[in-house]
């Protein structure tokens, strides 16, 4: 029988990163993700890695930039206010085409906000949180197992495309405990990191990791190349979970912890005889636009659940055919508790045209 562990989401993402070969962690304490630096400070030295509790979130992301420039698999983690501080470094990493993993165990904002779960960092994560119009690879795990799995996927995608990756979790995903089945990292063919700085070491040319392009036309060319990578990801790397779409008349959509609750509500709806399906985006960037554009004819309505006043729903509206209706139900950060399955079931029933 396979080994099963009972661990927190925060521990799972750290374990997945270690299994993925991450040997460098740079971070700063913030609730609700401090289990990650705690885990890394304990485990990394044992495998020959380096852990630094940095002086700031800004220093952490720049240490990540430096380690990544050397070709190492490295990561940082934080929660919303700290992720804001990392946006400068993320923009530079995007511009310098450096891979790396940033985990956001999101909490409520704006400002210091609160420490309860929130999905209001969606815009920041997927729409170029820092300056300059870049994209991150953004993954949205909805279980402790996925926290583990996505850490490996994030590193692989990040290395393949030389785009920084973000795992967008939340307080609940980070803090909840579930069974985890650890497994070896999948064998994936990745391009050699021949761009990494190593010291010239007899090479006849230097290697430069940079984001400054002042030469005539250089920056435009650079940006078109970045754009082409984003387009390629949109074609090749979209991941989503489709549940009972075949005959669905109403399609629920949600990501992360909200999707987890929605799944129970969906089951309740099916048991009540309602033809309800679900699209759960796993990659928030690239967004599963194809899934919405290709909704089955039966699906006349899409109902989007979020722990915010509505962010992903903008992308859902953008890609859902115009002859369908998109409805939204959300709670702003600070609502204090997660919606219950009964509450979402009530929303499903209402939009399906039935009394709950």
């Amino acid at each position, binding site marked *: 029988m396979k080994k099963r562990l009972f661990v927190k989401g925060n521990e799972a993402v750290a374990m997945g990163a270690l299994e993925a070969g991450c040997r460098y962690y740079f971070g700063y304490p913030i609730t609700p993700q401090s289990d990650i630096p705690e885990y890394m400070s304990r485990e990394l030295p044992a495998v020959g890695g380096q852990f630094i509790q940095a002086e700031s979130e800004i220093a952490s992301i*720049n240490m990540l*930039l430096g380690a990544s420039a050397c070709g190492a698999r490295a990561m940082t983690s934080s929660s919303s206010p700290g992720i804001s501080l990392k946006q400068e470094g993320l923009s530079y990493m995007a511009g310098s085409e450096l891979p790396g993993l940033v985990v956001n165990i999101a909490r409520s904002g704006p400002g210091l906000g609160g420490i309860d779960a929130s999905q209001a960092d969606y815009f920041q994560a997927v729409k170029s949180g820092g300056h300059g119009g870049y994209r991150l690879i953004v993954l949205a795990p909805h279980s402790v197992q996925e926290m583990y799995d996505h850490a490996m996927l994030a590193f692989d995608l990040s290395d393949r495309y030389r785009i920084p990756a973000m795992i967008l979790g939340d307080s609940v995903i980070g803090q909840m405990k579930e069974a985890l089945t650890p497994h070896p990292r999948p064998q994936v063919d990745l391009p050699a990191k021949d761009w990494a*700085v190593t010291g010239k070491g007899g090479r006849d040319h230097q290697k430069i990791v940079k984001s400054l392009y002042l030469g005539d036309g250089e920056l435009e060319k650079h940006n078109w190349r970045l754009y082409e990578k984003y387009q390629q990801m949109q074609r090749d790397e979209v991941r989503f979970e489709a549940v009972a779409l075949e005959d669905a008349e109403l399609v629920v959509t949600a990501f992360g912890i909200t999707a987890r609750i929605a799944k129970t509500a969906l089951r309740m709806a099916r048991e009540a005889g309602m033809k309800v399906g679900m699209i759960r985006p796993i990659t928030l960037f690239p967004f599963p636009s194809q899934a919405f554009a290709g909704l089955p004819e039966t699906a006349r309505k899409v109902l989007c659940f979020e722990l915010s006043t509505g962010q992903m729903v903008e992308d859902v509206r953008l890609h859902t055919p115009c002859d369908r209706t998109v409805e939204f139900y959300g709670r702003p950060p600070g609502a204090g508790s997660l919606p219950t399955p009964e509450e979402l079931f009530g929303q499903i029933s209402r939009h399906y045209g039935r009394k709950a």
Partner: protein
Amino acid sequence: MTGSLVSAFNHSKSLKDVVTHFCPGCQHGTIHRLVGDALDHFQVQEETIGVASVGCSVFLYEYFDIDVVEAPHGRAPAVATGVKRARPDRIVFTYQGDGDLAAIGTSEIIHAGNRGEAITVVFVNNTTYGMTGGQMAPTTLAGQRTSTSPRGRDVSSDGYPIRMAELMAQLEGVSFSARVAVNSPKNVISAGRVVRQAFEAQVKEGGFGFVEVLSACPTNWGMGALEANERIGDEMIPYFPLGIFKEAGRRQGDASAQG
């Protein structure tokens, strides 16, 4: 016996044989040369990773024939920390100006020094933001006119010019900290020796080496090159004294400091 000619002035091997973009009278070129000579001296060009910062010296990679990572403004010591931790077998240095190191990057330099990262920091202090056009820097002298202190730096409102080399010497993690100037042949020769020591702290002791170089910015000072050199001697050195403030982890004149 046939006499043979010996070249007494050689180009630094770690530098490229190219013309720099620096303004006439700017001393970045001289300081680049001193750093290049230090890399040559320890024969580490092939194993060095430089970290460029934001400012006039961002084009480090155009002039040094080494691998280079470009850091965001002020973050070079954090980037260098990541580089050195990932590649402890490499020689790593940052090259930063006064706005970069002593204003926006104060936190990063203090903590990299405090951790005793095995890196070398070359800090060029010319009392102004050169690249952005001569605004007030954290090292701008009291009364000095700049484009953002048009009536002269008013210490009651703007604060005082920061003496970074002395400040860094206070940190237990710092192995070596010194200040030099490159305004005269004598000072350039002495500066070359001290820059080498700042690398020696890393190469031989695995410690953190810091060297501040007083430097001219004739363009933004509104002076000719010779007049700018005189200003360094007349105005800067009296406030920013030259010297070694810490060596082999020991503060000068402080017998109780760690050794």
